[in-house]
């Protein structure tokens, strides 16, 4: 038996994700009735929906059996997949990045940046990031008690942090923000390239144009950093060699693009979602002000809550049984992190936002060898922002309804209107 069509359509519908409760309700039913089963939707290759925390972990623990890069890494219809292969000369993903490669290629590419983003390696950045956080807190306080926290703080602060780490000049930040939003929010008329409702064909065309614009930008970055290497991430990528050779064009561009886009958009979404949760919970701010150690728990809970990457796809390279289901070689699987992070088997109260959990094994960053490269930096920059903001903030509440992006992949709140007072 396959998952009911209505439920299957809901969990891939970008508009449903803009009203998150609809997707959450669908996954509650899926976890209860068919936690690992197939979805069959017209126009799409059938795929398994992996909804439970434990099953997602089991699959991510076996990267030799479940590949990222053999098929599209995010849900795409058959026609879209065919067009991507035409555009890329046979590859299933427009961008060849860390999330869409496997095995030795993945290990080698990840190794270029990995030693520079470990907790120990990023510790010396703390003061510089705190300086940026203070700047954005000051900026927020100029708004005289009312601000759209998503647009005016959450989108901008992680952008400044990652661009500083990468070595992108400050004047290029608006360009990077615009192209990131085009890349991840293609279904949202407010944020996509055309600023309009697009057909699936138009969305792919738009994605391709955005990718080409990013590639044109980064071609100059390679030349710049090969001429004058620095210790910034883009310089490491530009100058990296595997087996004595520079990264090829697709690898280079994929690396720059994933670092420059996913490197801030996910953190922005989580930061905006955290403020939304805080503004709806009177008392939580003063709790953290009285006990700042709770800020780490607030960060972790906001990552679980917001889960900015809604899913990734995997494909099986051999037959294997998972949770009693027989997966066949070639099968496509959707790992739903949104569902995994609300699994009742792990959290007794998954729909409560709590900062007093004993344990919070959220899997928003993924698991295993493909776990998010920037997870420690993301945690650190969020912690620092809240430490700096909570020193100044006296009260905060919502000043109207928040609004979420229309997207089924990387997304979160796009408007978080708040009212605040300061000490």
């Amino acid at each position, binding site marked *: 038996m396959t998952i009911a069509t209505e439920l299957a359509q809901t969990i891939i519908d970008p508009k449903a994700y803009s009203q998150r409760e609809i997707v959450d309700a669908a996954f509650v039913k899926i976890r209860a009735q068919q936690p690992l089963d197939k979805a069959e939707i017209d126009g799409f290759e059938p795929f398994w929906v992996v909804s439970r925390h434990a099953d997602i972990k089991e699959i991510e623990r076996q990267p030799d059996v479940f590949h990222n890069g053999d098929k599209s890494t995010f849900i795409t219809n058959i026609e879209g997949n065919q067009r991507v292969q035409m555009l890329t000369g046979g590859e299933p993903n427009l961008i060849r990045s860390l999330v869409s490669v496997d095995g030795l290629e993945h290990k080698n590419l990840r190794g270029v940046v990995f030693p520079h*983003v*470990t*907790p*120990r*390696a990023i510790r010396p950045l703390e003061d510089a990031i705190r300086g940026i956080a203070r700047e954005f807190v000051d900026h927020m306080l100029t708004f005289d008690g009312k601000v759209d926290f998503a647009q005016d703080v959450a989108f901008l602060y992680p952008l400044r942090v990652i661009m500083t780490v990468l070595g992108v000049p400050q004047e290029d930040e608006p360009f990077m923000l615009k192209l990131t939003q085009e890349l991840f929010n293609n279904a949202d008329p407010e944020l996509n390239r055309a600023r309009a409702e697009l057909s699936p064909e138009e969305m792919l065309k738009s994605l391709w144009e955005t990718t080409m614009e990013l590639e044109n930008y980064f071609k100059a970055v390679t030349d710049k950093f090969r001429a004058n290497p620095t210790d910034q991430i883009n310089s490491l990528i530009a100058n990296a060699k595997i087996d004595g050779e520079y990264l090829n064009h697709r690898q280079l561009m994929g690396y720059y693009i994933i670092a420059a886009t996913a490197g801030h958009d996910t953190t922005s979404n989580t930061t905006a979602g955290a403020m939304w949760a805080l503004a709806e919970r009177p008392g939580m701010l003063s709790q953290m002000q009285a006990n700042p150690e709770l800020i780490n728990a607030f960060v972790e809970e906001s990552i679980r809550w917001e889960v900015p990457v809604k899913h990734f796809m995997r494909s099986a390279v051999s037959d294997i049984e998972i949770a009693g289901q027989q997966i066949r070689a070639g099968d496509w699987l959707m790992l739903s992190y949104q569902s995994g992070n609300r699994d009742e088997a792990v959290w007794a109260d998954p729909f409560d936002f709590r900062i007093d959990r004993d344990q919070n094994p959220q899997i928003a960053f993924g*698991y*295993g060898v493909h*776990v998010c490269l920037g997870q*420690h930096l993301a945690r650190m920059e969020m912690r620092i922002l809240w430490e700096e903001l909570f020193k100044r903030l006296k009260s905060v509440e919502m000043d109207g309804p928040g609004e979420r992006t229309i997207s089924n992949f990387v997304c979160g709140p796009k408007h978080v209107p708040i009212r605040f007072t300061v000490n």
Partner: protein
Amino acid sequence: MRRWQCRYCGLIYDEALGLPDEGIAPGTRFEDIPDDWYCPDCGSEKGDFDLIQS
């Protein structure tokens, strides 16, 4: 022989197997791994590993 697990990415360090690719021989006790070692998958520090089987 005991097994330890990274709380951030799930990597398991099995003392019986060591991590030969990382220069840690089979049979190496977790305590004997240098303190500045970090998880080869996610970069977490030695203190972020939990004992899961003793």
